């Protein structure tokens, strides 16, 4: 019971948990993911073109 009360008090405390290092790393990862998805899209488009060409011939 007492533990629950303590947890409630602590949960009301500051909501700010920004990690400046984590944010920099996350941004780097997001950038990489963006490139990967662009490359993936190009490959899928190329594959579709090949499949369509194969189907039409």
């Amino acid at each position, binding site marked *: 019971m007492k533990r629950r009360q303590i947890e409630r008090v602590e949960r*009301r405390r500051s909501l700010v*948990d*920004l990690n400046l290092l984590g944010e920099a790393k996350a941004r780097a990862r997001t950038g990489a993911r963006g490139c990967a998805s662009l490359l993936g899209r190009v490959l899928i488009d190329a594959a579709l073109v090949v499949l369509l060409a194969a189907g039409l011939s």
Partner: protein
Amino acid sequence: MPPETSRLAVDLSGSSIRVLEGTLGGPMRCGSAAAPDGATSGGRIVDPVAVGQAIKQLLARTEITTTRALVAAGDAVATFRVLYLRGVPTDSDVGAAVARELALDPERLETAWQQVFATEDGCAVYAVAWDRAMVNTITDTVKHAGLDATVLELKSASLARTVADASCVILDLASDPAEIVLVDRHMPRLWHGFQLDASMADDPAPALATPLRSVIRFYKRGRDSGFGPHSPVLVSGEQALSAHVLAELEELVNQPVQALAAPPRVPPNVRHSTYLTCLGLIMRRGS
């Protein structure tokens, strides 16, 4: 619920280096050392090798062996804001609002933000812009100490976690320079650093009231302030101010003034005023 794991907190926000290892409610080890002469200036590190060596010696003396560290940087290396945005903003909406609010030099500064809570018609965002070179100096310092920094946050964010009051002012006299952090709705809102004059020792209340009044007056000019006449000024220092000084300060700033209480579950052998930033760091929810 799994038991909390021990964490190492390193406070590099001032001219003293402070380290604390442990968990809330569990055993803690802590130690403090002055930074080498000329290695820090106004809350900034200027000699990462010297400060790194000093941290290493302090860790050895304190018998701390943990190598993953949560680190607090002085607010002098950054600027922060809390923005209230309407609707459900996208990342680019928030980015544009942050760029408008914080004067940005992308060559020198980096920004990050966090949506902290939803409001009736939007959300509150905590945004930070920091000097990339200064933050790199801090991470280099930590590496020179043989540590791996997993978290880096501003001291004001750590301090805001140590108080239960939703809105208050923290007056930290244990740091050099002395600092004022205004907290509103559980978020740091303003930071101000000032030098303590040796001559104020005889009559500290008027000397402390001047910067406090400026910060409070400036903050109250803004809209959406939850900081009211009953929001307290919480004083933290190596030596407690006398009841007479607290009463005089209360009269001068026209807000309740009291000593900052230790956060819950801090063992009595830890001087909470000295290690307040470190305690705030280990109170983080995220690693």
